[in-house]
């Protein structure tokens, strides 16, 4: 009996660890992808990059201080380039409270957007997140604004404006209304892409499947959408 006891303890811990891990996984991960049936509209006009005729719309809820979002941004840039006229990307702000500078970074992107350079700032913020996420990010943001040739004083003023903050909150409210609870969350024609399929190869496979059999995207851009054509690479 005593000889069996250590093995019983080890077996019990194995079962508890596996069971606990599984329960935690199930609590954190819904196997049923979210489908956007309704939900709040989010900030308008939406930040949209790609062809207006695209059959695939990728809507991302992202946080500039979230590193997986930065990885996804690079992946989406390649995807947009490769599927030039078939794919378009919408970016929605979803700054997480545990990221100290995420909201400020979203304000920087929106302020740049008011001068017509949202996507350029979006790319710069993701590419340089490692630098600005430590310490005071404002000098970095002002530097990026200058690099993009923006009116820096206006940019700084716009960053503080209620207009910019309201827009970010509207995007967040849209996310919450369709049960987004983490970043990055990506929707392909209104259906959530599992987090485990966000790498370039899996994403291409999903897009190809949609293009080969899917119906045209049900979400046409609004007349005022902030539509931009895909850029071949990050701004220098």
């Amino acid at each position, binding site marked *: 009996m005593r000889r069996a006891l250590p093995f019983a303890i*080890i077996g019990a811990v194995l079962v508890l660890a596996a069971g606990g891990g599984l329960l*935690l*996984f199930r609590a954190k991960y819904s196997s049923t992808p979210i489908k956007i049936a309704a939900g709040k509209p989010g900030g308008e006009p939406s930040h949209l990059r790609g062809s207006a005729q695209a059959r695939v719309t990728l809507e991302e809820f992202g946080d500039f201080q979230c590193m997986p979002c930065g990885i996804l941004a690079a992946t989406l840039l390649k995807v947009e380039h490769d599927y030039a006229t078939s794919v378009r990307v919408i970016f929605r702000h979803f700054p997480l409270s*545990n990221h100290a500078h995420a909201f400020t970074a979203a304000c920087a992107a929106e302020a740049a957007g008011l001068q017509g350079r949202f996507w350029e700032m979006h790319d710069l913020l993701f590419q340089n997140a490692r630098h600005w996420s430590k310490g005071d990010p404002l000098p970095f943001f002002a530097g990026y604004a200058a690099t993009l040739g923006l009116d820096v004083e206006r940019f700084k003023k716009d960053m503080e404006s209620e207009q910019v903050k309201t827009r970010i909150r509207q995007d967040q409210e849209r996310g919450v209304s369709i049960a987004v609870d983490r970043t990055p969350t990506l929707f392909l024609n209104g259906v959530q892409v599992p987090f485990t399929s*966000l790498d370039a190869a899996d994403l291409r496979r999903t897009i190809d499947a949609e293009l080969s059999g899917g119906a045209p995207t049900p979400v046409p851009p609004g007349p005022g959408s902030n539509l931009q054509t895909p850029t071949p690479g990050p701004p220098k």
Partner: protein
Amino acid sequence: MSNSRPAHGSPHPRLFASVALLSLAGLADSIYLTVTHLTGENAACFASSGCSEVLSSVYASVGKIPLAAFGAWGYFAAFSCAILAAFGYPRVRTFLTVIVAGMVVTTLWLLYVQAFVLHAFCDFCLISAALSLSLSALVATSYFIKRRHRPAAERAVLLES
């Protein structure tokens, strides 16, 4: 095979019980990190600010397998060996030493990566580092105690014969 059977009790069961408890804590930490990685959730740091940066880096996974999953197996193996050692199985001490040595080497490498490559620290990784370094200290102590007590044990054997 005689030395794979339990001896007449472990010379220091409390020490191995401590190793087992620390391994359990490490197992819980690693499971949390593994699940966080697999579900794509951003682990929230409570003291540092680099959890997201560290856990989404290329160093956080081997292929598609989170590094934390290997850590979980390491802690579970350490726990199993510690329990068996506490119940007087002498041979498993060697396995425990090898496992803990591997964990310490990995820990030192990951600390280096966090400090000098990523310039960011993750609380849960630091907890794991502290646990594996504590495990190594305890395992080293078990050898020290073993050596100190060996003459007494040898004397006992002589008396019995």
